């Protein structure tokens, strides 16, 4: 079967700047696929090439087996949820949702019924006659979603849709997005710079850096086995271990990344060190240890068990890491 979205040699240049470099990517039908990366990493450009807002400099975009590279946005079977929602300010909520159906020539009664159904799916029934400026950010977000799904696209493209929402609302919308995707059973392509969001929601994540996909895999792959320094530091937090530190910890002779929650303190056979910092974050303590004689620091997490903080600055501890818990990093081509 054909992939839902197939990119081949996708290349986009703006003047002298390469935004996307010869990208090959397959996104499967029904998949929740995230494109994760810092701003300027090319992820949004890829999304805009899929939607048709940008014409690639070279390369092709195929949707469900059909090459759409030369097609205008209105001729593509995908819909977009924009970062700033892009609701039509002069139209009511229901008219915004009906817009695509009206353009497609769907009759008034069916239009209304489908728009109301879509508003129900995003839990925004009862707001039909409001204007966008009368809604909160979260409500506008829902209208933008309803407006896109009402057309029953084969794939939904979401450009940092939760970026403008506050944390609480964002977490709630994450759950709802996931549920909506399951319910609709269509492909979601989700662009975000928030690694938490990408890990929480996705079936697969593509990590972008400087116009390239630097790692592609399940959230677990990407989190547990970051391939290089960039991914290890961008996705979640981790301590980067230089080769001599890896060796001292008995992990091999290669640069490695280790997640703080996989670092154990005071287990037998550990490397000695001094606690440099104890940071209380609520659910856990973040403990930074200066390793003796290595000139390196490592961070460990210990859950907040409710007992009075047992560790403090200056305490002597030993540090150990399970070999399976450390991810070997690829040598940096520019590190030499």
């Amino acid at each position, binding site marked *: 079967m054909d992939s839902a979205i197939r990119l081949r040699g996708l290349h986009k240049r703006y003047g002298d700047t390469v935004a996307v470099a010869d990208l090959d990517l397959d996104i499967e039908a029904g998949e929740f696929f995230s494109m994760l990366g810092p701003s300027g990493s090319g992820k949004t450009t890829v999304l805009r090439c899929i939607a048709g807002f940008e014409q690639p400099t070279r390369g092709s975009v195929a949707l469900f087996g059909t090459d759409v590279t030369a097609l205008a946005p209105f001729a593509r079977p995908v819909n977009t949820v924009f970062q700033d929602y892009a609701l039509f300010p002069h139209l009511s909520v229901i008219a915004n949702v009906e*817009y695509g159906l009206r*353009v497609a020539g769907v009759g008034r009664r069916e239009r209304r019924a489908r728009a109301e159904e879509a508003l129900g799916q995003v839990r925004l029934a009862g707001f039909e006659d409001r204007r966008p400026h009368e809604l909160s950010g979260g409500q506008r977000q829902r209208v933008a979603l309803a407006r896109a799904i009402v057309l029953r696209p084969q794939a939904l493209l979401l450009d940092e849709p939760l970026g403008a929402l506050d944390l609480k609302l964002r977490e709630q919308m994450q759950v709802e997005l996931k549920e909506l995707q399951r319910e609709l059973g269509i492909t979601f392509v989700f662009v975000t710079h928030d690694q938490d969001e990408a890990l929480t929601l996705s079936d697969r994540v593509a990590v972008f850096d400087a116009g390239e996909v630097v790692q592609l895999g399940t959230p677990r792959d990407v989190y547990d086995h970051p391939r290089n320094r960039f991914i290890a530091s961008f996705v979640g937090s981790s301590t980067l271990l230089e080769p001599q530190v890896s060796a001292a910890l008995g992990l091999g002779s290669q640069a490695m990344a280790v997640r703080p929650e996989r670092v154990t303190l005071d287990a037998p056979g550990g490397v000695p060190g001094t606690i440099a910092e104890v940071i209380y974050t609520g659910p856990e303590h973040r403990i930074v240890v200066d390793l003796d004689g290595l000139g390196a620091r490592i961070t460990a997490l210990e859950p907040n068990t409710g007992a009075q903080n047992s560790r403090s600055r200056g305490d002597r501890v030993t540090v150990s890491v399970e070999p399976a818990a450390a991810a070997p990093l690829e040598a940096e081509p520019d590190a030499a």
Partner: protein
Amino acid sequence: MTTRSVSAFLAPRRRLQLAGLLTPPVLWLGLVYVVALAALLVTAFWTVDELTGQVQIEWTTENVVEVLTGALYRTVTLRTLGIAILVTVIDIIVAVPVAFFMAKIARPRMRHLLVIAVLAPLWASYLVKVYAWRALLSSEGLIEWAVSPFGLDTPGYGIVGVVLTLSYLWLPYVIMPIYAGFDRVPDRLLEASADLGAKGWTTLVAVVLPMIRPAIIAGSIFAFSLSLGDYITTGIVGGTTQMLGNLVYTNVGAANNLPLAAAISLIPIGIILLYLAAVRRTGALRSL
């Protein structure tokens, strides 16, 4: 008192600050607009001594009744209104594509050049521009030269000349607000419309035009009201055509009947007030 102590004195006294800020302009506006308009209104109800030609403070509704019922005034009012409407429509038709190109298609460099090009004629004297049109429209003018190969003639001096000249004169005032209006339509909305299946034309009709309607109306207020009060252009390129402004001018000058002139000038004021009242609801007045 030093500057510092004046500031310290004023800082907690918001009302005094506002009063200091607004008193001079309010006085000026009050004198120039309100008092002058009121004087005009009052003058319309006075009379002129037929012998001496002196204005007399003798109350009468004769002038106003004459202006409202006289056939001459009705004809000239309708003609003036027709010219103003035509000029407004022509300017909008020309301005919308130009403004769209400026705001949405032109690159920044081109956009700046176009803004300068649109505004540059405003630096030239009104009279120079109208006389330039007089030359263009003359029987040996550029228009005659350009259209004669097609068996056509220059429209010459008359209503057509007036409409063409006024359309030219007020075009910048129509382009600028519409340009600003287009500029306020985010590109994202055009993308969203295309994303939802709309082709360019549908997007224009369903999204762009409704959003820039206030801007178009704002532009129309300029073209319409400036045309309504004009008399110099008519005098120079209008041939024998008369607009309301010409009647006012004649009565102030040659006929020496200030009260009648005041009464006539109430007509365009009334029309403009009606027009403003009609467009008030559209939000256009916030786009000026």
